[in-house]
């Protein structure tokens, strides 16, 4: 399998995404914002469509539109009550609807689009890998450097605000990291499934972990194992790699459940 270059590239991209997605998802899950990844994914779709329309690199346009969308969602999220919730729904659906209209206008409503919706890791090129690795490494470095501050906001947002931490800035950074993760990961598991890879490994890790730090590292391990196992199974069983990867991550949650029950 590894004698094939496209498989080596797929595994390399998968390693980056397998580590990055749960690391960012860790902060979203702990803040009970698991579904925000889905929302940003919807907006990223509009970015891909814009790239088709303007004939620009799709990862670049998806990244820019995702960051704008993530910051908009974060700003709306801080609003109280149902109005904020409805505003979030507005962003989600505007993103996907705008994407459909833009991609149709670009005449790209075809099979290529499926690569971004459901992932197409086996078509990752060397150029794609350089972009994925650079963005992924930068995002992981930011998390490593600001881990304590990000955790302080996760643990007690209002207490952190009162104590003088730049909570708004840190929340915007988390949203930005989520946007980068989605732009980086869309070739691997697809826009529609990336949120699952951000959330499921964290949920599985939370069942067996003994601390915040161990949750994060276990989640990254489970994410990595899910991607590697998913690609391998997909290769030998002729299955779609994105969907297979997410199913492996879902199985990890089920396997971890007995540990949670025993702990109680």
């Amino acid at each position, binding site marked *: 399998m590894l004698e094939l270059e496209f498989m080596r590239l797929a595994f390399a991209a998968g390693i980056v995404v397998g580590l990055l997605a749960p690391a960012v998802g860790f902060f979203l899950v702990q803040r009970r914002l698991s579904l925000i990844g889905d929302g940003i994914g919807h907006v990223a779709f509009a970015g891909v469509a814009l790239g088709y329309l303007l004939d620009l690199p799709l990862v670049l346009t998806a990244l820019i539109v995702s960051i704008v969308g993530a910051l908009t969602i974060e700003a709306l999220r801080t609003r109280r009550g149902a109005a904020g919730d409805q505003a979030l729904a507005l962003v989600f659906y505007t993103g996907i609807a705008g994407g459909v209209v833009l991609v149709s206008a670009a005449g790209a409503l075809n099979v290529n689009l499926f690569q971004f919706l459901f992932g197409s890791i086996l078509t990752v090129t060397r150029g794609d890998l350089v972009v994925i690795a650079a963005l992924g490494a930068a995002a992981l470095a930011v998390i490593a450097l600001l881990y304590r501050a990000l955790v302080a906001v996760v643990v007690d947002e209002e*207490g952190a605000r009162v104590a003088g931490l730049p909570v708004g800035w840190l929340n915007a950074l988390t949203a930005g990291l989520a946007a980068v993760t989605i732009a980086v990961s869309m070739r691997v598991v697809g826009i529609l499934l990336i949120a699952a890879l951000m959330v499921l490994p964290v949920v599985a890790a939370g069942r067996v972990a003994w601390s915040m730090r161990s949750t994060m590292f276990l989640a990254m391990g489970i994410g990595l194992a899910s991607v590697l196992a998913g690609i391998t199974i997909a290769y030998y069983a002729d299955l779609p790699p994105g969907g297979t990867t997410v199913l492996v991550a879902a199985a990890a949650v089920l396997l971890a459940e007995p540990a949670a029950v025993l702990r109680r």
Partner: protein
Amino acid sequence: MPLTVRLDHVSFAYGHGPPVLRDVSLEIDRGEFVAIAGPNGGGKTTLVRLVLGLEQPDAGRVELRAERLGYLAQRAQAGVDAPLTVRELVSAGRVPRTRLIGPLSRSDRDAVLDAIDRVGLLPLAERRLSALSGGQQQRAFIAKALAAEPELLVLDEPTTGVDVESQESLGALLERLHRELDVTILYVSHEFGAVERFVERIILVRGELVYDGPPKDLPELWHDPSHAHA
């Protein structure tokens, strides 16, 4: 005594709703241990949120002369589902006193352990918060607030869901911390019995300020929290 908090004819309502607080004026000096009491919905939490700058008054003026603030919010315990240990929780409270980037220094780690020790949880420092009792969780959150070495410590309903024995124990802990650390404490509760004998002053809030003075002078009727519903 230098002034820590001043509210000058403060009124507040959420959105276009009815006023929650009307024309409240008070001053709190540095080093005071004050209970803010009153019925549910009486405006106690709103009052401290105004003090901490989390809400802005519709009328009047709020002045806060303290830079280091510790706040235990009413629902801070909601985070106990997260798989964090006592040490991780208290370390999070230390972050405002450190640079944001990189690991904690040795002196910061010592300060974290000191805060945990002050609330009597050092043997449980590596335990998951969710494995502790309600009273121990509250102590851990107080340690988190202490880790920033606050000048003003605000505790909003810290005894909610905690048994009577733990309430007594928490009251004694706060009295000792107040004495040892010379910190100004605002203790919000609708059941202030546990701290009544420790605080120097009770402020009773029921939409407006209805009593402000020493606990011993509090009219007997108001010792019963249900007075507000009469």
